[in-house]
Structure formats: structure tokens, C-alpha cells
């Protein structure tokens, strides 16, 4: 551990002068940006390209259409199977002889800790400020359909994972793509799995790492006053390295235990604010429904609201990206479908419940400027969004909305944002590592190389404002979804077979309740 830490600190030290110089002179900063923009800009533009004649990016449509297809194909599994999902999480169907293995609840909680985070706090604020309250409606719609996508990918994740002789498991899209494609006699499985793994590694370093570090620093600097980003970066990287490479499992455990409570507390505070303003809830829902179909003064009107809602839902619940399939594959169940059932609760909790809470509080708080005469929202042309109280967006807007009810909330939100960012980084270091070992094989030394690279990127992410680099990594995250959803289309008949067999045995009484 000590040796590892020395290696890591040495690597950090060698990076620091460069970063410090970059911050002072901004020369290096700009050069990196320029290089990235030159070489990757075309790819980023391609991924986020709008559909001809609209400002609706095709990638958001790709995710929503996928979710719609899975919903229809599995006969609205998210509705029909909702109660069964809850029974599974409660452990009603858990065989007592399997006690001590990873439970459905634990798998769900672990996967959720990777998705509940900045998307629920900052993402919603962005959606509502650009798309108006109506964006909330479309976000919920996208979340509800996304449940079917999660069902599909997580069932496959468990079905095709690798189990090693020592008992540990590795799973995820790269495993179901190779095994599933060869089982169905389809070509290109190996190629797609490698492609997915490369996208996952880059997405892990970007959206799952640099973006998180960057936002965590922004929030800290916002509350505590401005200070150099590399300080946040080195501290975060040190702690992360201690957790993922140094075996400081206690920090990881503490985080995994605090984060769910932060999430629950966030929801409770939201409910409390809604209760205090209970007379406005009806009005807020009215704004959401009206805005969903008219836009209520938002530029782009109805489509503006729709686009923002769909985009933010995808960012927040990661349905279709393939990451959740990696997290869920650790469950040792005889029925892969049960894990699919459990996973479909994720977008529900993440998007339908938590995101809606945030949106309602923002709408009710009145931080969005509204013209009292017409009831339309006032558009801030320059910022490209609704004019807001204090002229803020993102986390700061959520913070301002909650501060209207509780003045201490920004401090709590700061702690929550840093913790959420940290737990998302730990989650993505795991996803990235799984893709890395898929490409290069398992082994302590190989894994350490990835972990060191991962932590160095935390420092870079927190220290620099590398816009194009972060754009590129976001594009990678969505590239994962392109490969993953294509694979899901080809493999969904396998899931259907599993589902039919499971439901039949459930009806016949072959699968019994243990509680």
C-alpha cells in the first residue's frame, strides 16, 4: 500500500508543475483544448448532431426509440412487472439457502449509487431552465420507457457474465455481446465488444471522472470561495486512489453507506418543501403539463421542452448506456430475469421520483422568472434559457431554489454534490476497469495501470476547464449506447425466451415464494 501510494504521489507530483503552469499561463490548457478540438471535434459534432431541420439530437432519439421498442416488445414489463420487482427486492422470492450471497436489494442499491448524482441535481435544473417546467413531463416519460431498456440489459448482464474458479464474477455488455452473438451465430460480436470496451474506458475517464471532479470543484469553490482546482483534484485523486488501489475499503464502505442516506435525505427535504407549499403543488403540476405541450414561452415551445426532458433523463438514469449491466451482473441468481426486474426500478427511483422532486421544488420556489401578466416564462436570450433569480443555472439554480425554503441547504448540497461525485467516480472506475480487463486480461499489475491513469484524470478534470475534452468524453458515453442498443436489438429474443419461461414457472407455482 505504501509503495503504491509513493508511486502514485510521484506521478501526481510530476503532473503538478505542468498543471500549475497551465493555470498560470493557460497556454497548455489551450493547447490541449485545441488538439482535442482538432482531432475529435468532428466526432463530437457527429454524436450530438441535430436531426435535419430540428435542434433535436439524434442520439437522444436513439435512446428513446430503443426504450420504446423494448417497452412494446416486452409488453410494458415496467407496468406489469412493477409489483413483482418490489417483491424481489423485498426478498420474498429469495431462497434462504442462498443467504449470504449478494441480495437483489444490494445489487439495486449499488447500481443506484452510480446513477443518482449530479444528473438529479444539476441536470434537472438545466432541463427546467432551458426547456421550462414542461421538460419535467418528458423527462418522466423518458424515465418510464427507459425502465424497459434497463430490464433488457441487466437480464443479459447476469445471463452472460464470466464466473471465475475463485468465485468472483465479471459481466457487462462486452460479455453478453461476445457470448450472445456467437450463440445466435451473428458476426462481429468480438469487434463490437472491443468497441464498447474502448468507449467505456474513455467514458469512464470523462463523464464518469473528469466531469464529476470538475463539478465537485465548482460547487466547493462556489460555497467556500475560489481556490485552485488542482487542490481539489489532488485530494480527490488521493482518496480515490486509496480506495480503488490501496484497499482502503473502509472509505468506500462509508461512502456507500452515506450516499444512500444523502439521497433519502434529499428526497425528504424535497417532500418537506412540497408539504410546506402544498397549496402550490396543483399549480406546479399544471405548469408541468401545460409546459409539456405549449412550452409556456420557452424558445422552441413544445419541442424545446421535449428535447430537454429526453436528454436529461438519458444523462441521469443511464438506461441503454450499458453501465448498469456491469453493476448488476454480480448477483448470483439462478434466474437472470429476476435481476432485470429489479433493475427496472432504477430509472423509476432516479428519474421518476428524484428528478421530479427537484423539478417541483424549482418550479414552486419561483426562481424561474415569470411574466405575471401572461403567465409565460421570461426568456434570457443571451444565456439561451429562462431568466432566473440571481442569473444562475445548473447546481446553483437548484441550490437557490432550495435555499428559499431552508437557508442552510446550499451547504448540505455542497456536501451532497461532492459525495455524489465521489461515489459516481468510484462506480465508473469500476466500470472502466471491467472494460480494461476485458481488453487486456485480469491481473494486479494491469489493473493498477488503469487505476493510476484514472486518478491522474481526476486531477486534470478538477484543475482545468477542458471543454472539448469533456465534450469528447460525453460523446464516448453516448457511443456506448450506440453499440449497446444495437446489441440489445439482436439479443432481445433471448431475453424474451428467459422471460416467458420465468413467467410460466411463476404461474405454475414452480417458482415459489419463500416469505
Amino acid at each position, binding site marked *: 500500500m505504501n509503495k503504491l501510494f509513493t508511486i502514485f504521489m510521484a506521478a501526481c507530483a510530476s503532473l503538478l508543475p505542468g498543471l500549475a503552469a497551465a493555470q498560470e499561463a493557460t497556454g497548455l490548457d489551450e493547447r490541449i483544448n485545441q488538439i482535442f478540438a482538432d482531432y475529435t471535434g468532428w466526432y463530437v459534432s457527429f454524436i450530438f448532431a441535430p436531426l435535419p431541420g430540428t435542434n433535436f439530437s439524434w442520439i437522444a432519439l436513439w435512446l428513446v426509440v430503443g426504450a420504446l421498442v423494448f417497452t412494446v416488445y416486452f409488453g410494458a414489463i415496467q407496468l406489469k412487472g412493477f409489483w413483482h420487482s418490489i417483491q424481489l427486492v423485498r426478498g420474498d422470492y*429469495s431462497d434462504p439457502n442462498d*443467504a449470504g450471497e*449478494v441480495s*437483489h436489494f*444490494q445489487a439495486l442499491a449499488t447500481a443506484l449509487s452510480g446513477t443518482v448524482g449530479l444528473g438529479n441535481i444539476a441536470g434537472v435544473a438545466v432541463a427546467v431552465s432551458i426547456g421550462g417546467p414542461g421538460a419535467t413531463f418528458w423527462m418522466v416519460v423518458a424515465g418510464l420507457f427507459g425502465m424497459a431498456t434497463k430490464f433488457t440489459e441487466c437480464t443479459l448482464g447476469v445471463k452472460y457474465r464470466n464466473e471465475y474458479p*475463485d468465485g468472483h464474477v465479471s459481466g457487462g455488455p462486452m460479455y453478453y455481446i461476445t457470448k450472445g452473438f456467437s450463440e445466435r451465430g451473428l458476426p462481429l460480436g468480438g469487434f463490437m465488444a472491443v468497441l464498447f470496451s474502448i468507449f467505456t474506458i474513455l467514458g469512464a475517464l470523462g463523464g464518469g471522472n473528469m466531469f464529476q471532479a470538475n463539478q465537485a470543484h465548482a460547487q466547493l469553490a462556489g460555497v467556500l470561495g475560489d481556490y485552485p482546482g488542482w487542490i481539489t483534484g489532488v485530494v480527490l485523486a488521493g482518496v480515490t486512489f486509496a480506495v480503488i488501489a490501496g484497499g482502503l*475499503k473502509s472509505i468506500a*464502505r462509508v461512502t*456507500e453507506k452515506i450516499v444512500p442516506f444523502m439521497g433519502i435525505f434529499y428526497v425528504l427535504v424535497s417532500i418537506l418543501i412540497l408539504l410546506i407549499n402544498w397549496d402550490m403543488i396543483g399549480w406546479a403540476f399544471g405548469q408541468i403539463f401545460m409546459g409539456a405541450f405549449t412550452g409556456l414561452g420557452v424558445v422552441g415551445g413544445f419541442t424545446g421542452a421535449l428535447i430537454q426532458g429526453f436528454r436529461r433523463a438519458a444523462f441521469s438514469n443511464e438506461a441503454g448506456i450499458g453501465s448498469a449491466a456491469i*453493476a448488476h451482473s454480480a448477483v448470483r441468481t439462478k434466474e437472470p430475469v429476476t435481476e432485470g426486474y429489479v433493475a427496472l426500478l432504477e430509472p423509476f427511483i432516479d428519474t421518476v421520483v428524484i428528478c421530479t422532486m427537484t423539478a417541483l421544488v424549482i418550479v414552486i420556489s419561483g426562481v424561474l422568472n415569470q411574466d405575471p401578466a401572461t403567465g409565460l416564462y421570461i426568456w434570457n436570450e443571451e444565456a439561451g434559457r429562462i431568466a432566473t433569480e440571481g442569473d444562475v443555472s445548473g447546481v446553483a439554480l437548484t441550490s437557490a431554489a432550495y435555499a428559499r425554503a431552508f437557508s442552510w441547504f446550499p451547504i448540505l448540497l455542497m456536501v451532497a454534490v461532492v459525495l455524489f461525485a465521489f461515489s459516481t467516480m468510484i462506480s465508473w472506475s469500476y466500470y472502466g476497469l471491467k472494460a480494461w480487463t476485458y481488453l487486456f486480461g485480469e491481473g494486479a499489475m494491469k489493473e493498477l495501470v488503469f487505476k493510476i491513469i484514472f486518478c491522474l484524470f481526476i486531477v486534470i478534470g478538477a484543475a482545468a476547464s477542458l471543454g472539448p475534452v469533456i465534450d469528447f468524453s460525453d460523446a464516448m458515453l453516448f457511443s456506448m449506447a450506440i453499440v449497446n442498443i444495437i446489441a440489445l436489438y439482436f439479443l432481445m429474443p433471448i431475453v424474451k425466451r428467459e422471460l416467458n419461461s420465468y413467467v410460466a414457472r411463476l404461474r405454475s407455482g414452480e417458482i415459489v415464494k419463500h416469505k
Partner: protein
Amino acid sequence: MSKATIVVGLDGSEAGARALAFAQSQAKQIGDCSVTVCYVIEWSPFTFQTKEENEQRHKRREEELQRAHEVVLDPAVSDVQAQGIEVEGIVRHGDAADILEEVAKKRGAHQIVVGRVGERGLKRLFGGVTGRLVAGSSVPVTIIP
């Protein structure tokens, strides 16, 4: 009436050993009586775990079961066997109070014997394993101080 059974809860402590000794003497006095030795590894399906913990869980579980057998259960079982008493050994993951009760019910046991563990602080306030066992058990419980 069918053969009598006594369920003994072990925890690897002194108190557990005293409980086992008491159960043996009881079984001898009864005569036609078997002893079920039960060791529970404290575990809950409703905890929050890291991804690595989940990935390694199956391996850890096997290790925990093996250790429980080696260190606590197997010595206890052979100890009872040496006395010429019929014995069965069980290791399970879960809540000790729930599992002891469940095992006793399933075996139609006529009593459960556990050692008293000195519990302090919060655990005493909320009632430790023995407290909850006494509160919820469907058969007589003997607590050995």
C-alpha cells in the same frame, strides 16, 4: 412423542461453550434426545455494498462458511458426538434470532439454549440477539449466564 431435540446457538464465545455444555447434560438426562448445533454468521440482505464487495461476495461467503465449520462448528459437533449424543451441525447467514427460531420450529425442538452475551450501549437498549429471541420464540428458551 418423537425424539426430543435441543437447538444450541453458538457464537464462538465462552458463553456459547457453556450453552453447549448445558445442552449436552440436558440431552443425557432426557435420554433419547438429539442436539442441533447452530452457528449464525450475522448478515443482512438490506445493507449497502460497494461494487467490489458484490463481485467478491460469493468467494467471501464460501470462506466464511468454511471458517465457521473449522473454528466453531466442527469442534462442537465432534465434542457432542464423543458424548454419544446424536448431533447435527448447521451454519447459516442471517439474523441469529430469526434463524435459531426457524431451525427450532422446523426440527420441532423442545427448547433453544443460548449463552448470554454481555451487551452494552445501544445493543442493550434495542435488545440484542438473546432479547429478540426470547421475545419472538415459539419454544422455551434457556439462557446460560
